[in-house]
């Protein structure tokens, strides 16, 4: 009986995601696209934070690397955006490989601060390397994604591209968490009762594992960033600031760091709250709005965690228990 309900729910969600957007306005489709993009970043980061228990407040760096690599290659050098996304992956993955080795030797607060530093460095580079990145003003007219002759310019078309990519990436993370790799990752989560020394003496190469998850999370962030670039078609350092580095972590934590759904609920919650804030606050100046967003979302973040320490997933699980497991 339980399995029937599970498939039914999946089926309904699938149908809504596939056909729902055909009936709603562009505004809502745009919201869904952003939720998906943030969700992609959050998924990878969630594996690092929630499963491997390693913090990173600097993933705006990889998000931005994906965006700028893909944006610059396609705008300035006419390279196909798909190749641009691939290049972004190698760029972010390569840099994650290089900095991962030294950084992941840190523990606890030191690691957090080190990752903050990484986020700051790249945000600075995006702004200062104006000969490539267009500096603080940025650049526009980044090409859209296209296949054959068809260009994914309209929101509704781009939505399906993002949906497919999101679904594939979600499947990969789901496979990882269910597998032996997922179990090994959990063994090194010290906060939750893991034991690094036991893991090592059982043959787990902890250093290598942390590096790999770090690289994977950087790749996910990069894909999200590239998709952002080819959607908004304008890039400046704004969305890749340290605030967004914090924001990604906040999204994961608020959604539920230990669950595979957390990185989906979190971004949905963030985007929802942000839209509400923009309604409630007179949008005289986009900078002022940004300020309100920071203040109010941070407050909301603390409040939600006070009542739901495991994140919003706690709410969903409670509902699930009540409704389906009588």
């Amino acid at each position, binding site marked *: 009986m339980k399995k029937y309900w599970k498939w039914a729910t999946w089926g309904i969600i699938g149908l809504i995601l596939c056909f729902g957007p055909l009936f709603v306005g562009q505004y809502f489709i745009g919201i869904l696209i952003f939720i998906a993009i943030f969700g992609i970043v959050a998924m990878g980061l969630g594996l690092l934070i929630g499963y491997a228990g390693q913090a990173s407040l600097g993933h705006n760096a990889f998000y931005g690397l994906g965006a700028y690599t893909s944006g610059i290659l396609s705008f300035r050098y006419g390279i196909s955006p798909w190749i641009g996304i691939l290049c972004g992956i190698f760029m972010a993955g390569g840099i994650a490989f290089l900095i991962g080795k030294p950084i992941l030797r840190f523990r606890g607060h030191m690691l957090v601060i080190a990752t903050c530093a990484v986020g700051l460095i790249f945000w600075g580079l995006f702004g200062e390397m104006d000969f490539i990145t267009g500096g603080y003003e940025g650049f526009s007219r980044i090409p859209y994604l296209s296949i054959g002759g068809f260009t994914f310019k309209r929101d509704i078309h781009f939505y399906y591209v993002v949906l497919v990519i999101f679904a594939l990436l979600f499947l990969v993370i789901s496979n990882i968490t269910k597998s032996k790799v997922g179990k090994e990752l959990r063994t090194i989560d010290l906060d939750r*009762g*893991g034991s690094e020394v036991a893991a090592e003496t059982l043959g787990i190469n902890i250093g290598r594992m942390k590096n*790999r998850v770090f690289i994977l999370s950087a790749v996910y962030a990069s894909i999200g960033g590239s998709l952002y670039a080819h959607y908004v078609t304008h890039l400046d350092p704004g969305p890749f600031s340290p605030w967004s580095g914090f924001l990604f972590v906040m999204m994961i934590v608020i959604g539920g760091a230990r669950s595979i759904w957390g990185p989906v609920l979190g971004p949905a919650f963030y985007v929802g709250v942000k839209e509400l804030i923009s309604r409630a606050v007179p949008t005289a100046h986009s900078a002022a709005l940004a300020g309100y967003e920071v203040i109010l979302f941070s407050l909301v973040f603390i409040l939600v965690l006070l009542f739901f320490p495991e994140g919003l997933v706690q709410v969903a699980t409670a509902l699930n228990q009540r409704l389906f497991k009588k």
Partner: protein
Amino acid sequence: MKSPYLEIKNVTKRFGGVYAANNLSLSLQKGDLVSIIGPNGAGKTTLLNLISGVLPINSGQIWFNGQRIDKVPAHRISYLGIARSFQNLQLFNNLSVVENVMIGSQRRGKSTFPEVMFRHGRVKREEREAFAHAMEQLSFLRLEKKAHEMPSSLALKERKLLGIARALATEPEMLLLDEPVGGLALSEIQEVGKNILKMQEQGITILFIEHRMELVMNFSERVVVMDFGEKIAEGVFDEVRKNERVVTAYLGKRINEV
């Protein structure tokens, strides 16, 4: 004379000014069942940490099965066939009992990371095999009924056995046990002791540290006594307990503390 299976050659380990191992030499043959005893602070656990690669040595050499292992990282030493349990258990409290053991069982699998990402058929098959293998280890130690419980809900004896089951799942050639029966009742010590003998019958070389003499007396072939990082006696239990240095080491300390 047959060359030793495990050989600790003039090993020294310092923590600041304290010698946890002081020019220590010790050897085991394949199939041996040896216990290590000694007062607190003698360096027994440190010795296990040095062998298993958790801590580096300062000088000397450690050889296992013809290979030098003192500079090999812990996870590789595991692959060379050495497994261990811990005095303070170090169980994965966030994994179930069988999942704890699967960590040992599953590494026999050959699935690569890309295969895992896309859940290739082999991945699922190997998971089933790892699960079955883990259940075998649990059955061997009579823990199979608790397979899906969390370690925190187990009694102390069961948790100790779980630590051993997890180590066994790596199919080791040599097993290092750190106080496998600390805190257990006499009947439980008998049970664990019999399991140790069963493991020896399967060809595993066993070295264990203990304070509980019931285990040492009845379930080891040879006893090594350590104090201040040195080996002060070695032999069968009856010889060793009469050794003057050993008696002084145990009693002498207590008198000094008064």
